[in-house]
């Protein structure tokens, strides 16, 4: 590992200048990509993922469909240049399969699959850059992409990672912090405040766990506001576009009629 960097200095600042509970910059881009039904490029600091949704559509493999609900299929692809060291991961790599399985089971109860029997929803995740918080970026991006695709869900799923530095809880860890600290990812459904995903992989005392767990739940609510704003922006843009396009084709004549009426 590189030289020892102070994770939390005496002034209460972290290595990238954030405060303990400060989240990284989040940027959301939901513009159209290729022929996808919905897509979202989401950046948490330097971590960047692109999620595209296809569906609900007819499944490629008919045998895998279910008669009473839609099947969710998740494929994750980590780009070889997304980390500092170039590493090619096969698609059957266990870590990637696990990530895909986690995303799949997180969204299965949230997406209203029962509305689309015998069909399939494909979620393709491209990891463009990694700097910690991969799972939470994937979950947030998938939520937004599903919303953009117009797939009905019961609620948002907002995920945040958290960790502890000695006794101080931190939120939204970078790669550097993740390597050194026990950390976990929590996904909440903001409307009910319930938790759909908890993933802790490093040793942590039970009392500390409770502390970060609660904190991450609150941070999820904050993140929800940001995500909701992005969805609203997109929708208002779409509505504007619809209005202008509805006016234009019938352009000249109707406008004149309107003016005539106004003159009366």
């Amino acid at each position, binding site marked *: 590992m590189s030289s020892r960097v102070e994770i939390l200095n005496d002034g209460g600042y972290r290595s990238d200048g954030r405060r303990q509970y400060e989240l990284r910059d989040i940027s959301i881009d939901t*513009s*159209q990509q*290729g022929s*996808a039904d919905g897509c979202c490029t989401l950046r948490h600091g330097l971590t960047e993922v692109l999620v*595209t949704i296809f569906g609900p559509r007819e499944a490629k493999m008919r045998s895998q469909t279910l008669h009473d609900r839609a099947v969710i299929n998740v494929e994750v692809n980590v*780009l070889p*240049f*997304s980390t500092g060291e*170039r590493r090619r991961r096969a698609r059957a790599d266990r870590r990637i399969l696990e990530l895909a399985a986690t995303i799949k089971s997180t969204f299965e109860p949230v997406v209203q699959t029962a509305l689309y029997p015998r069909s399939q929803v*494909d979620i393709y995740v491209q990891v463009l850059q990694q700097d910690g918080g991969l799972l939470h970026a994937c979950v947030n991006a998938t939520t937004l992409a599903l919303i953009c695709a117009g797939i009905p869900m019961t609620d948002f799923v907002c995920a945040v990672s958290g960790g502890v530095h000695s006794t101080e809880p931190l939120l939204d860890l970078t790669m550097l912090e993740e390597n050194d600290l026990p950390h976990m990812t929590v996904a909440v459904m903001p409307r009910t405040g319930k938790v759909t995903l908890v993933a802790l992989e490093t040793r942590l005392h039970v009392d500390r766990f409770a502390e970060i767990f609660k904190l991450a739940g609150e941070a999820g609510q904050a993140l929800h506001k940001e995500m909701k704003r992005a969805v609203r922006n997109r929708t208002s843009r779409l509505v504007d576009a619809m209005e202008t396009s509805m006016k234009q084709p019938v352009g000249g004549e109707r406008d004149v009629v309107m003016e005539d009426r106004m003159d009366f």
Partner: protein
Amino acid sequence: MATASISKAERTYIQSSLQANPPLRADGRSLLDYRTVFLETGVAPLANGSARLNMGKSPQEGGGGTEILAATKLEVEDVETGGGVDGGRLVCTVTCSPSAYPQLSSNALDELQYDLTTVLHQTLAHPALHPCNLGILPRKKAWLLSVDLVVLADAGNALDALFMAARAALWDTKVPRTRPIQYQGRRGGGANEDAMEAEGDPAAGARSAFDTRDMKRDAADFELPDYWDEGEVLDGRDRWPVCVTLNLLPPTHFLDATSSEEGSAPVKLLLTFSFPSNQPTSLQAMRMIGSGELLLAQMKSLLADGEKYARDLFQALEAKLRDEDVRRNVKARGKFAMR
């Protein structure tokens, strides 16, 4: 190559409008027009060089088009023990995102990836194009230059876009400066030796230090000197080829097919040209894809035409890449001034 299947009627419609006089295309282009290409270099901060290319993005909605992400990464390889080759080597890989080909099964996707990788790798890793600054220490260490290309969306003509993106990423690649270090068996030089002598038996200490150095006289390592920029540009970056795909629809041909046009042209001729400065143009690769035949005489004129198109494309790309360099340097300088 993978194209969305189109109906017979649709195919005939596209074919006959392409062969009409004047030829008609769905997006209003002439036969030899390219769609608008958007190119940005330096998009992946963790790579040594990178580029994002979009061909045919619709300006209003900001979506659609063929989208390629390319990045190069340099790694040090050991020539003696590792898999390195003296003078460095280049490996090219193409990955296709399943979202670019939603209709393909994962096996078909793997095959397509393999096909594209072969075309790109065979062309770009050819010794004639090899940059000469990939060696670090002769017969010891060399750079492995891996070029990774990702097809994020395919709206036709992925091959031309792939070559353009690869060229842009390679153009953007900076090779870190290295300085070879030689161990010299000079006697009584370093402070290290003095310390050893002071410690124990003076004679033995001096000898052992000398011995190890003697052994290493031949051996050499390198270091990365601190310098203000990320390194020097890759050698021979004007040599990297561009590719034009001629979609043949006798008696005419057309360029930059969209996916539905790709499906209706029976034969494609892939021509890859390199235009090194001060040297004659060379044809780097030629492939005929699809079923059909070509008369030899036709071939000659097609080659000549292809060269012309490729030169135009090359010049446009070159100008854009130089622009990008200027843009990024200005940005970097601005950042520097801010500090």
